[in-house]
């Protein structure tokens, strides 16, 4: 039984895809889209991350448990991000005016 394996073809395609995405995100970065710049950059980076995780790291093949672990990791990172940002987003807000 051989290790869940990505075929040579999909490795090469993933590699080229990653290079293309790096180029596009760099070019998009040069346009002035204000606060959207970082959002787009992170979205493209997430696509690249998905490619690496899925194909080069064989997450799409093999054990389903590995996929659960990855999703769990992402969820826990988001827990840390969202709950800390609830504080940072709402810190300036004042209480409804006093009685």
């Amino acid at each position, binding site marked *: 039984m051989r290790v869940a394996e990505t075929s040579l073809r999909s490795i090469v395609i993933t590699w080229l895809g990653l290079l293309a995405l790096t180029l596009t995100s760099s070019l998009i970065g040069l346009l002035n889209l204000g606060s959207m710049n970082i959002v787009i950059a992170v979205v493209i980076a997430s696509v690249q991350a998905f490619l690496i995780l899925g194909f080069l790291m064989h997450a799409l093949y093999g054990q389903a448990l590995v996929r659960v672990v990855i999703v769990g990791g992402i969820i826990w990172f988001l827990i840390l991000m969202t709950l800390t940002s609830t504080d940072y987003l709402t810190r*300036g*807000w*004042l*209480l*409804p*005016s*006093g*009685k």
Partner: protein
Amino acid sequence: MIHLIAFSSDISPEYNHFFLLLVIICGTVGTGIAAFLIYCAWRYRRRDPNELPSQIANYIPVEAAWIGIPAIVFIAMFVYGVKLYFDIERPPDNAQVIYVVAKQWMWKLQHVDGTREINELHVPVGQSIELRMISQDVIHSLYVPDFRIKQDVLPGRYTTIWFRATRPGAYHLFCAEYCGTDHSHMGGWVYAMNPIDYSKWVRQGGAEGSLADTGEKLFHQFACANCHHYSGHGRGPNLVELYGRAVRLEGGGTGVADDAYLRQSILAPNARITEGFRRSIMPTFQGQLTEDQVIALIAYIKAVGARPAQSIATESYEPGTAKPAISAAQPAPSADVTKRSGGR
């Protein structure tokens, strides 16, 4: 002396009732469980070493009951807790402001009328007091157990807490957040006095001029007047009647000129620039001004807003600078500005 059922501030009766309610609920549940444990241990003690008791291991209704009931009780506790929290955190609008500067291992309290106290606070009974607090070094926490109030005092940001004493007396004042070697000694007393004694105390306090006056001296000592003319033609924005007003900022957005905004404009002027003024001509005073001096300056700017600029301009003017003509105050939208501010 700490009063067990202290009723010495506005919120402490409400606090004590909720605390007592919790003690009763948890007490009954706790003793109920303990009694059941002891009863079972005795009633079902092992009589014959080889006996095999009934093996019932599940009973859904009971299971559902002790999931549902605690959930409901906990949500009720949450709601009541939030209501009490809002009462503690939301100062009434007519609160008298006192500034507190926490420094490693002492409290400096400054009344607006200029009296300055170390580790002691004299307040009239029945008057709601709002404490605006900042720390000069590490995180401290102002804690008056009898008034049921506590609030951390952070470096770099104003935090506020309010109370209204209802019974005269001397109450402990503690530092609640560990702040170094003499954290245990960083405390003092809050003297709630009935109004007559309080006014007697204020008179013989002999403060040498109000907080705003000290602020005014600093205003001229640090040459703020050179740019912030009363005429409004100086290189810096006009400060007359600025306090509490909405300010349009460079690059869009508006900010309310409250304590936090003014403190940031003094210490990091270029963080938020008022519209129409060039950047980076105002030097930063970070490190030159202590927190007390910043508070005095803010009190002065607040006072400039209340009193007509004319009376201040003549009183304490250094010779040699041109006497400004009083121009219309800076046009600003009359945004509905909540008087109470104090950045959280």
